[in-house]
């Protein structure tokens, strides 16, 4: 390990130079701005949508209920949320295998908020050259004013982001009025500021460092790549040898390729890499270099696509295979898990029952000579109003049930009951048998659930 220590140091201690990405226009820039506006719009708008006189999407942590429009999930439904996360992860794998880092370039919150922050920065400080000049300038009145203005707007935007984030977990309208009257709880205040600070730090200061040093996906996404995955690539064969030339000069006569070495592809890159050095994990696939290079090629009357979306196979053999085992595997897995999730949600019972056998006694013989097994029943009411349930036991003829109390369960609560199941031993031929407990709501027979247990008698 020690022999690796200096290289480890090197990795951890790489010096960072501030990156001032140049503004870019073009097809992919338009796509990115569209994605950014749509996603930011959704993020800030969704908590304000109302449904049945409540917030439509609310992960109500204080009440331990998750509302997704008409669907109400309880902590016991954690499996569905886990399923949703698995579907999200598999979608990411699938899209990565097909189209590379689409997520990073267009949809990742880090990209989305960094774009928004950079837009604010450009509006206040100007484009790349003006920003570099401003950063090098001594700290005078204009610089101080510009920086204070930028950071103030960033901070306000971040705090609004923090407020919206907390608004997903506690009703946003109430939270807003509490904020206006300065009467929010200490933890709500803490999380608004914490998330606001994280947004300000990540999108304002850290930017590409989040992708390079913090993002685990950036490190393992190459595992989902193959030679047919869409990547942004520089056509070395066409571009090299690179070099400056006059606009009307014939590159062939000069012995040059199509790359004029203008370095615009480096200047527009939000992570500051040179795409001409080959595929790098820092590349977030935003295609800013594609847009800017196409504009340069257009000006020079060269064919576009010196830097382009392509695949390794297309670069070498001119063809890409979209349908391949990796893609089929991810797609099938995604379909199966998403199908199971939808099936589970559609068939989700509004009541749940868990049976735990009494661990202390296997069975006991009553004064009447019956065999009794004791079970602890947990009845989960997943609906938003209270219910009284009928509990029945079946599986062996002649079973009797004795409950210690009525099975009344409040909305969203779990009730625990002790259930004694009795039988005349002569009615039971085997030493043990499976039995079923069924709970059914008294006012609605369709609300029902069943669970299995084991009944044991003396040999």
């Amino acid at each position, binding site marked *: 390990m020690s022999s690796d220590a200096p290289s480890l140091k090197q990795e*951890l201690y790489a010096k960072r130079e501030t990156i001032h990405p140049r503004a870019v226009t073009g097809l992919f820039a338009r796509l990115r701005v569209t994605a950014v506006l749509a996603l930011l719009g959704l993020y800030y708008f969704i908590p304000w949508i109302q449904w049945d006189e409540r917030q439509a999407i609310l992960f109500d942590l*204080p009440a331990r209920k998750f509302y997704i429009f008409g669907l109400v999930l309880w902590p016991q439904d954690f499996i569905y949320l886990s399923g949703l996360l698995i579907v999200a992860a598999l979608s990411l794998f699938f899209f990565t295998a097909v189209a590379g880092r689409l997520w990073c370039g267009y949809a990742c919150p880090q990209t989305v908020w960094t774009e928004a922050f950079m837009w604010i920065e450009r509006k206040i400080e100007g484009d790349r050259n003006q920003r570099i000049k401003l950063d090098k300038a001594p700290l005078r009145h204009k610089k101080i004013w510009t920086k204070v203005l930028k950071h103030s707007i960033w901070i306000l935007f971040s705090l609004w982001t923090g407020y919206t984030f907390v608004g997903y977990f506690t009703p946003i309208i109430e939270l807003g009025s509490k904020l206006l009257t300065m009467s929010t709880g200490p933890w709500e205040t803490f999380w608004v500021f914490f998330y606001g600070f994280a947004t300000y730090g990540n999108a304002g200061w850290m930017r590409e460092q989040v992708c390079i040093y913090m993002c685990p996906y950036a490190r393992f996404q190459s595992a989902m790549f193959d030679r047919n995955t869409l990547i942004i690539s520089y056509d070395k064969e066409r571009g090299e040898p690179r070099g400056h030339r006059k606009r009307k000069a014939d590159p062939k006569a000069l012995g040059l390729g199509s790359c004029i070495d203008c370095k615009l592809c480096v200047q527009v890159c939000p992570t500051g890499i040179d795409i001409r050095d080959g595929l790098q994990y820092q590349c977030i696939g935003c295609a800013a270099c594609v847009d800017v290079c196409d504009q340069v090629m257009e000006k020079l009357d060269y064919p576009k696509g010196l830097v382009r979306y392509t695949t390794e196979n297309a670069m070498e053999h001119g063809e890409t295979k979209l349908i391949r085992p990796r893609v089929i595997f991810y797609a099938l897995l995604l379909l199966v898990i998403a199908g199971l999730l939808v099936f589970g949600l559609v068939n989700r019972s509004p009541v749940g029952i868990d049976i735990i056998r009494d661990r202390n006694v296997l069975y006991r013989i009553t004064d009447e000579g019956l065999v009794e097994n004791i079970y602890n029943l947990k009845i989960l009411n997943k609906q938003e109003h209270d219910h009284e349930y009928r509990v029945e036991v079946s599986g062996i003829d002649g079973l009797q049930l004795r409950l210690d109390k009525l099975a009344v369960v409040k909305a969203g609560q779990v009730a625990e009951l002790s259930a004694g199941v009795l039988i005349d031993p002569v009615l039971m031929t085997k030493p043990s048998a499976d039995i079923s407990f069924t709970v059914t709501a008294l006012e609605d027979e369709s609300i029902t659930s069943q669970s299995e247990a084991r009944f044991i008698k003396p040999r």
Partner: protein
Amino acid sequence: MMGTGGSRKKVLIAVTWPSFVCAGIFTALLFAFVDPYVLMDEIGVHADSRLAGYSLAFLYLWLVGIVVAAMALFIMCTPDPGKKEGNQT
């Protein structure tokens, strides 16, 4: 270990970020099965709201994660006494 500004920042990231992610996951897992009121009662911490319970548990798990990550990083960066500095490649 805590050399330049840049290095300090990166050490900070290595220690706080993975522990933050883990704390988030474990907090979600924990409270899927346990009500924060019940947990707080069990360990004798007074919490006047569930949000306080979630927050305290998250911050506690984050702190534990930070300590673990810092120890791991410290062990990684400790030179091997068996080798001379000049021999390291």
